[in-house]
């Protein structure tokens, strides 16, 4: 262990924390603002720290603080206090651990050392995800049962029935994907997708395996307990479903766990079907070979994007009252944007004038890939939110019909088809 490997391990852990745990407040914010915009209203936009609102992001931190300082109430009817407290921990930990195998970037090569760019440096990939994602439902069932409340119990029964109806289809849809890629290690899977199909189409999973992609995305919504499959929560039917009796941070763990699970599902969807950390047409080798051009492109693209963003911000980030403290925010953020632009352009220009060496090219590639992964992850999370505010909830029996009668036969047919093609054409 030298200082480089230690620092890279620490950076990986920080990145994994940022993408899963740190993403939770941002996802809550995205959820509420997107819901507002879809329904033609504003969403949270008042909360501010000295006038800084960040479009309402501060509200998430206020809500978090509220959850932490609320009374942790436990009804006297709860007999199994230990299991009652254990349930949210299981949900949270399993959601959190699923994220640990998602690669943020291609293996980083520094000198003779090669590092996995993921939270835990293991190559179990898809298996790890399936194992821990399946575990989270035990937390839900345990919590619903320990609550000693009929609504909660109904919620957890529904969660159990939901799990057996979609997990089969989910696993089977993954089998055909794994046959195609020939590996369970996510870095191998992403590098497979870096190739080009017929010389010009990126060989992304959604193009090679469209049926598996649809089945997996549908089941991922059930996995993350999101609408249209949030029947375990079912607030219009079951009060709060499995977390009816929970309050304060015990509820907060369920709540954060749901968003972390959603983020982990998005990460796996991105990794399996949308090229993971690869930019389209630019896989790791291409990126490393043409790093000077890519950096030069960033030096042009960043000010352009910043210009349009600033224009949008000055038009929309306003407060009605003149002289309100919130009206100072846009000017302040504009200064920050200019500062970042100057820093990046001067830094990159200085670096390019010195000449980029191999280690530098590798690190720059890793940074670009991490950013690509973050943007793809954000877009996939947006799809999750978008679907939630579009579709109504499935009925309990409809979900089981969908899982057993439609998705599972489709997944099996897809396996047969994929296996035949792989055997006959020897791809």
């Amino acid at each position, binding site marked *: 262990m030298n200082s480089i490997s230690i620092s890279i391990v620490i950076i990986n852990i920080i990145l994994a924390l940022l993408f899963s745990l740190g993403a939770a407040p941002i996802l809550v914010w995205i959820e509420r603002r997107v819901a507002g915009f879809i329904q033609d209203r504003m969403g949270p936009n008042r909360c501010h720290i000295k006038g800084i609102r960040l479009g309402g992001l501060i509200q998430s931190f206020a809500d978090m603080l509220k959850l932490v300082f609320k009374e942790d109430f436990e009804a006297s009817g709860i007999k199994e206090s230990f299991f009652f407290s254990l349930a949210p921990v299981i949900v949270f930990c399993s959601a959190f651990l699923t994220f640990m195998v998602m690669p943020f970037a291609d293996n980083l090569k520094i000198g003779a050392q090669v590092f996995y760019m993921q939270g835990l440096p293991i190559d179990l990939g898809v298996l790890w995800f399936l194992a821990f994602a399946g575990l989270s439902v035990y937390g839900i069932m345990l919590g619903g049962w320990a609550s000693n409340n009929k609504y909660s119990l109904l919620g957890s029964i529904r969660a159990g029935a939901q799990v057996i109806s979609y997990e089969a289809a989910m696993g089977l849809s993954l089998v055909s994907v794994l046959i195609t890629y020939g590996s369970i290690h996510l870095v191998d899977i992403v590098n497979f997708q870096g190739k080009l199909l017929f010389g010009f189409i990126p060989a992304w999973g959604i193009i090679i395996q469209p049926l598996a992609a649809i089945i997996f995305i549908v089941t991922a919504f059930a996995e993350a307990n999101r609408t249209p499959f949030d029947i375990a929560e079912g607030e219009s039917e079951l009060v709060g479903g499995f977390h009816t009796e929970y309050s304060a941070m015990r509820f907060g763990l369920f709540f954060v766990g749901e968003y972390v699970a959603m983020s982990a599902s998005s990460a796996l969807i991105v990794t399996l079907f949308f090229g993971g950390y690869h930019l389209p047409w630019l896989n790791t080798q291409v990126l490393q070979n043409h790093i000077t051009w890519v950096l030069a492109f960033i030096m042009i693209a960043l000010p352009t994007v910043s210009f349009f963003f600033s224009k949008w911000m000055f038009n929309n980030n306003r407060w009605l009252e003149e002289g309100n403290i919130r009206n100072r925010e846009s000017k302040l953020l504009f200064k920050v944007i200019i500062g970042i632009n100057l820093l990046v352009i001067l830094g990159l220009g200085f670096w390019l004038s010195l000449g980029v060496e191999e280690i530098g090219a590798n690190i720059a590639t890793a940074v670009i890939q991490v950013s690509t992964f973050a943007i793809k992850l954000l877009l996939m999370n947006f799809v999750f939110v*978008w679907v939630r505010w579009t579709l109504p909830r499935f009925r309990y029996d409809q979900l089981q019909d969908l899982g057993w009668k439609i998705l599972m036969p489709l997944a099996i047919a897809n396996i047969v088809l994929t296996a035949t093609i792989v055997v006959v054409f020897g791809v």
Partner: protein
Amino acid sequence: MGIKIVKREGKSFKDRIYLPAILGGMMTTLGHFLRNLRDTSNIKTLNYPEEQPKDITSRYRGVHRLTKRDDGSVRCVACFMCATACPAECIFIEAQEREDGVDEKMPKVFTIDLLECVFCGGCVEACPCDAIRMDTGIFTFVAHKREDFLLTKDKLLSFEAKKEKA
């Protein structure tokens, strides 16, 4: 009698795979999202309380007021017609003799309990002297104590009619 064959919806292949309909719905919501994101002034909600509603007309039944004569004295003659017409029985009047010769009677106490009032406008309809109106345009009335919701005669006289915007 001919047989009318009702066309059943939702049985075609396109309907049964759900996805086209789901994508259509998602496009609708995305349209709303992008339109509102591009320019938040497209959103029609008000930033209440900084922004007040602009569609309160002169016929809106707001908080009551007692009108005045030309000399500024109370127009009410304490005839009890409004209290009789009131379905919520929220108007409390005590009459007294009027000394200045303008009229014979006037209210000594005229109290409306806003917590009981149903804002039906019955009192306005019943008044023979046009002495009570509900044209103040006040649609929120807040207080800290129950007693503060009792509008006394002085308070009712102090309200003015809502001015129409030109």
